[in-house]
């Protein structure tokens, strides 16, 4: 989904999208190699305990405090989102 969003932003910008065609070879090669490698070696597979373990939540508390307003930014996502996008990576 985020890849799609990024693509839309790229297509809307003044960037010469057709230049990307020149990178079609390397992009395809990397995609091909990594997909075959993962299919055979499965090095990215592990116990998905976050999803499969039964967890009951209780006493849920929350706060959402308005901090500021960004009037104009070209960033389509919050800054630093990638640092915490994987729940298994410690902050």
């Amino acid at each position: 989904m985020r890849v799609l969003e990024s693509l839309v932003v790229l297509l809307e910008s003044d960037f010469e999208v057709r230049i990307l065609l020149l990178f079609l070879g390397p992009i395809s090669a990397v995609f091909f190699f990594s997909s075959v490698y993962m299919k055979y070696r499965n090095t990215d597979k592990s116990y998905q305990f976050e999803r499969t373990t039964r967890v009951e939540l209780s006493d849920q508390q929350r706060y959402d405090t308005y901090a500021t307003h960004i009037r104009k930014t070209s960033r389509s996502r919050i800054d630093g989102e990638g640092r915490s996008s994987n729940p298994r990576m410690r902050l």
Partner: protein
Amino acid sequence: MSTDVPGRGMMPPGAGGPQPGQTPMPPAAPNPSTVGSQDPAEAAQVLRLRAGEAPGNLVRCARCGSSDIRYGIEQGALICASCRAQWNEPLLEAEVDLTRDIDKLRGRTITTSAQRLVDETTVTLKCRACGAEVVLSVDDAVQTRCHWCRNYLSADGRIPNGAVPDGVIPPTIRREDAVETIRAFAKDRSFYAHPKFKAEFAPENVVGVYLPYFVFDGHAEAEVQGEGEIQTATWLEGSKDNKTRYYAADVYRLGRKFLMSVDDLLLESSSEHANLDDPAQTNNIINAILPFDVKRAVHYNPNYLRGFTSERRDVNVEAMDAVVEDRLLSIARSKADDMVQDYDRGVRWDSERVDIRGSRWVTVYLPIWLYSYYQADKGLKHFVAVNGQNGKVMGSIPLNMLRLSLMTALVFVVASVVGVALFLLWR
């Protein structure tokens, strides 16, 4: 300049009061990433189960007294070789509650079999049928035969050497089915498989293995804090050939705090397989066929292990603190992510914390059909593993890197030619 205001409501996620089941939480200063835990000095409460009460080294058939008993997968029961009586041990759940009252756990509760290990892997069993003394190394097996009366003798739970768990999940997947599953898995990955692997591949060599695990139940308080953004407007600026998309957004400081009752989290208790990044063997493959339905575990009876190999537990509960805290933090973050879906520009978590209030540790043996292949030139042992309870398969197949590299080069050349051609045609 054109302005597109998104159609969705721009109410902040916290507006309109708390969500059902949630209460407002006062904003707190962001904490550094911290992990709380039980006081290591705190003595664990010990749950005494029947399995831990030294059942004796001679397990007999209740009907005829024979000790020649094995588990039949087709029958789903222990079968006496002499009188053909069939039975199963009672469910572990019947004695130790593996489900309820997790929120009432305080401190660390362990079963007798989860106690600190002693370095006594060679035990002397006194045969209760004839009185002979038989030496058994639990590193190699949990059963042996008395050399005088030929009765089967088993290691029992009197010595906490990791050989006797609380429970065991009997396999439901037959060996022949596991062989076919592994064969199909490898066949689907044959084109780029290493030629030596293809020549030597013999799924008939699959072995049934019981691996030791901790079943962890825990009650913990978790808290994560960070920042989230909600888009309020978006627009394009610039001329026809030079446009840039811009955004306006509201920024919120946010936090989520909750209590978690975690039920049946499985943790490896064999150090050989616990390290998922081991460069010598693909331990992540065995890890990936988890979970098992632990509610179906029965009381340990060594006869379930006949025909299987097994590895004994060699990790103490105390050594698992860091692993457990890491798992709970991951679960907490995953749950918190589900709670902030309204922030359409995303959330960046800045701090995380979990305090374990109570935990319960039970030990089990889980059945796995395992095919292993040692790739000598890489010094790497590849596994193809089948979950003995539900048949889930995962594996690592050695690659023919020459063939894969050549095909990758071919893809590179063809795609480059197509890309350049399209580039020249696209005016």
